């Protein structure tokens, strides 16, 4: 089963087309980087994939189901670009709530929370209120939330936002570790170097269309960087 798929998707807001005939496909275990300038339609694509919005036309499938079906989102870890966390909750309390919503119960739930906290290096801050954490640590909480319960698919929107260089390196490690155990990853980012290191496929969106896409090796010509390929695609 394909992990996620957009087929000829059009999404209009009034007369403006945020997405115009977009096709995307992510196989299990693969890593797809979604690139594009601001306003290219990356976030809109993620909203459609998670069932937050409906396409004007075309088909969207998440784990073989309509994304508006809650079961389609089982096993999906999501890190939004605008991460809003409950200020008064403790790190552990917030993650326990999210693990419960993810369908985890009892010891499985406690173990998932403990593992996620350990993974992102927040064991010593697990009882702290989220409101007392720095931006970088909050981003780690967001990552821990996305990684809860070993998801089959990670959807990450600007995942390294707010992280210091060490945090960026850690985040790369978490993404690669998830991929190694077979988790599919969709990363929307402006940081091309991070996409290059964590994904094997790339789709470059521009003005609501896929300007270029495919395996990294096919997209980036010999002697070129991903940045060169990106500029070539959006200026074509």
């Amino acid at each position, binding site marked *: 089963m394909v992990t996620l798929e957009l087929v000829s998707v059009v999404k209009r807001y009034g007369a403006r087309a945020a997405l115009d005939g977009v096709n995307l496909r992510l196989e299990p275990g693969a890593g797809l980087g979604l690139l594009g300038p601001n306003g290219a339609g990356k*976030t809109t694509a*993620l*909203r459609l994939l*998670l*069932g*937050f*919005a*409906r396409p004007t036309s075309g088909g969207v499938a998440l784990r073989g189901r309509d994304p*508006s079906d*809650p*079961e*389609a*989102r*089982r096993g*999906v870890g*999501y890190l*939004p*670009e*605008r*991460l*809003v*966390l*409950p200020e*008064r909750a403790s790190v552990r309390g917030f993650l326990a*709530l*999210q693990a*419960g*919503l*993810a*369908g985890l*119960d009892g010891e499985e739930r406690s173990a998932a929370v403990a593992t996620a906290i350990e993974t992102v290096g927040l064991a010593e801050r697990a009882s702290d209120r989220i409101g007392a954490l720095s931006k970088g640590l909050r981003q780690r909480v967001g990552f821990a*939330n996305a990684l809860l319960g070993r998801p089959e698919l990670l*959807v990450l*929107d600007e995942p390294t936002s707010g992280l210091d260089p060490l945090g960026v390196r850690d985040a790369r490690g978490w993404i690669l570790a998830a991929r190694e155990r077979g988790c599919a990853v969709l990363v929307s980012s402006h940081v091309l170097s991070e996409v290059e290191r964590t994904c094997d496929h790339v789709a470059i969106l521009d003005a609501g269309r896929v300007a270029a896409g495919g395996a990294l090796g096919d997209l980036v010509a010999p002697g070129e960087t991903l940045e060169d390929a990106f500029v070539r695609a959006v200026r074509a």
Partner: protein
Amino acid sequence: MKGFALLFGEALADAIRRRIVSGVAIAALLSVLMLDSCTSCSPSITVNGQPPDLGELMGAAGFGAFLVLGLWVIALAGVLAADHLRSALEDGSATLALARPVPREVFALARLAGVLGVAAGAGGLVLGAAALLLAKRSHLPLPPALLAAGACALGALVVGALAMAASLVLPRVATILLVLGGMGLLTLANGVAPIGEGAGWLGVLDRFGPPLASTMALALEPWLTSVTIAGDGIRLAARLVAWAIGALFALAYGFRRVELGP
């Protein structure tokens, strides 16, 4: 069900933390103190040189006070609901929960339940104190108060759910004005219908609108000794239940249609 319970706990905590709730708590305490003061007084009133029937006076005063407090609780539910769901959408906090396998309607109903939890706390305090004080000091029977409190709870559900559904398409201030204006009109319609025999648009509102005041008034009627309130209690209660079901469906349907931010 587990998802609902988790989200309800979160929604209730959010509702309790809202600034308006401290004002509500103060208003509720003042109401209780006022009731305590009013029910402990011994009025010396004469009408045409004769003392009136104190039981009748206490019954009428208790009826009015309980009705006003009940309407206050319903309005409180509506005002709190006017942005309890909307704020979670606007600040983006809803998206983390809705990225999980949580049905949209479960999220919306949990937010509503959070609001109703606060309204139930305030209502339980104010109406409970009123019922006990009126029973102990004015010797008014308790069962009418219990029935009226039940009608109040159902009314709060109707107004809260409709306010929450309206908040998905209206700004907060407009939703609050709609709640307060709508409740004022409905109460007026319920009040004047027996006098005007239900004519005009107020009559239509009284016959088909959610019977917020009339169900409570009918429940409290045994407290009135010289006034009879006409109405079929079963039919009124059935209409209120129908409105409650309709309001919940409107909220669930409306929230399913809403597009969420990232």
